[in-house]
């Protein structure tokens, strides 16, 4: 059975169709990548899944339950965790407190006490490898540490699906490889489905995702196993333009010189 199912999701902002009849299905424990150039509707799609926006049309079904119009704070405890494109830590709170918030409010029972949450936070801080920053205010971390903290915060919610919005943007390639390994390991051990959204760091997608969905101008362009999808001529065109166009431009520039 599928864990998350989107049925013909359409989200408009005034006249702009940000997401155009997108359907997709993610099974429990599966990892998929959502790829697309800037403005292709990736973040909007994430916001529809996590409840920040409600779609105009279509349905969001999580674990058999229709959650299309459920407010975000009720979705999180069901097991939908997410990280943000630009990290959004609670700056003045310590790393430990940030992660404890996830455990406190993000689990289904809702009965995790403050002390228990702080214990869970200690365990997770160790797992994500930012132990030395435990008592620092989250605002003082480096961007990479902030990303790790955000992942930790999401993990504390015991997610069944983790939506990662550009988790690796701006990272050094070595860090990316390390992060990919870490995410894969966590996903396997905790049986979390991963939806990784990426604009152009294909290295990350190839490492994590078994399947890739390419979005273009809000609509689904390709939905296929990772390697196949990234080599699809339509995808290449979306990213690089048509080969004959490219040749014509090069010629034009040469003449200018």
């Amino acid at each position, binding site marked *: 059975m599928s864990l998350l199912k989107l049925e013909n999701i359409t989200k408009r902002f005034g006249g702009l169709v940000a997401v155009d009849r997108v359907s997709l299905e993610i099974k429990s424990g599966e990892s998929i990548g959502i790829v697309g150039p800037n403005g292709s509707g990736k973040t909007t799609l994430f916001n529809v899944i996590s409840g920040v926006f409600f779609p105009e049309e279509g349905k969001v079904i999580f674990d058999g339950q229709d959650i299309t119009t459920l407010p975000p704070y009720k979705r999180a405890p069901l097991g939908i965790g997410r990280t943000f494109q630009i990290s959004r830590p609670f700056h003045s*709170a310590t790393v430990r407190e940030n992660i404890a918030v996830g455990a406190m409010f993000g689990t289904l029972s809702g009965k995790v006490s403050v002390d228990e949450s702080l214990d869970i936070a200690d365990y997770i801080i160790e797992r994500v490898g930012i132990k030395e920053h435990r008592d620092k205010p989250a605002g003082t971390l480096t961007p990479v540490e902030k990303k790790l903290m955000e992942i930790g915060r999401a993990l504390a919610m015991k997610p069944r699906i983790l939506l990662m919005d550009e988790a690796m943007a701006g990272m050094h390639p070595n860090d990316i490889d390390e992060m990919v390994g870490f995410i894969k390991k966590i996903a396997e051990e905790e049986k979390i489905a991963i939806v990784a959204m990426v604009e152009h760091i294909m290295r990350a997608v190839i490492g994590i995702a078994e399947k890739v969905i390419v979005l273009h101008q809000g609509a689904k362009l390709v939905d296929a196993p990772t390697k196949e999808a990234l080599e699809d001529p339509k995808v290449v065109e979306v990213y690089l333009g048509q080969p004959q166009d490219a040749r014509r431009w090069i010629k034009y520039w040469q003449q200018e010189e």
Partner: protein
Amino acid sequence: MRNELEKYYPLIPVFAAYLAMFLIGKNVTGMWQLMGMLAFYCALGQAFNIFLGMTGYVDFGYVAFMGVGTYGMALGITRLAHIEGLGVVIIIIGFILSLLMSTMLSIAVGAVALRLRGAYFAIATIGVNEGFRYLIEGARIWNGSEGMIFNAQLNQILGREAASALSTFWADIMVLIIAALAAFVTLYYMRSKIGYALTALREDEDAAKVMGINVTKYKIIAFITSACFAGLLGAVSWALKTPYVFPPEVFEIHYTVEAIIIVLLGGAGTLLGPVAGGLIYGISKYYLSIILPGFQLLIFAPIIIIIIILFPEGVVGMLKSKVKDSALARFII
């Protein structure tokens, strides 16, 4: 068990400050009035901090809660004074009325305005106190613009001597108790889930939402709590201390502005901040008006600007980061 107690260590400096105010006022001749004023500012800051400091939302209509609290006590006294033998019970009923009325108003305002974000919330609350004032005056509710004077009733209930002791001594003690209670509730919130939720929503409301926090619920909790303390404070320092109430005086936005200054001076969201802010604000206001009568505001404004620029996180915010790794850190939050 020791751990449980240790959680409440930060109350020690706060309570010590309030105790010091009491002792100075009691033992140094001529100081009682000043200490009463300082206690009022500290209590005002401590109460407002629960909302402004912990949520980061600015309520410009805050004084309205003090206003309806004052009316609650006034109504209790004026409407029940003729019943023989109730005595102090009337005052207790007055407190209950104050709490009820400030709670009801905060639910009404909060249910509408707390759905708005940041600056929009602040704008929506600007008119609350003025609106309420004109409602009372225009619709002639509770004597309208004539207000209520209940000196006689208070004398009748408690006897002349006790009534005068109440307004010159016990009312100030009650203000100190309200301040201490507000400090205790602040710390209790900080240590509980409520505090974590409020910190999260203050820093990033959207992130808080997708992490499972019902932000509206927690904002309303902080709002109502803060409003209740404002109601009690109004009942004590504006009804029991000075037994009359006029709409223009108790719905004066000036007090909201003072509360904002106190909280920001001391350090928004800190426990000790309102005490520091209340003392700095109260003492400088008092002495400036003695040294430079008429010019106090002219001098006062730059002083506040300088403090805010030097300590953007407030005096206690600065202190907190100074003592971060020392033994004092357990006492100052």
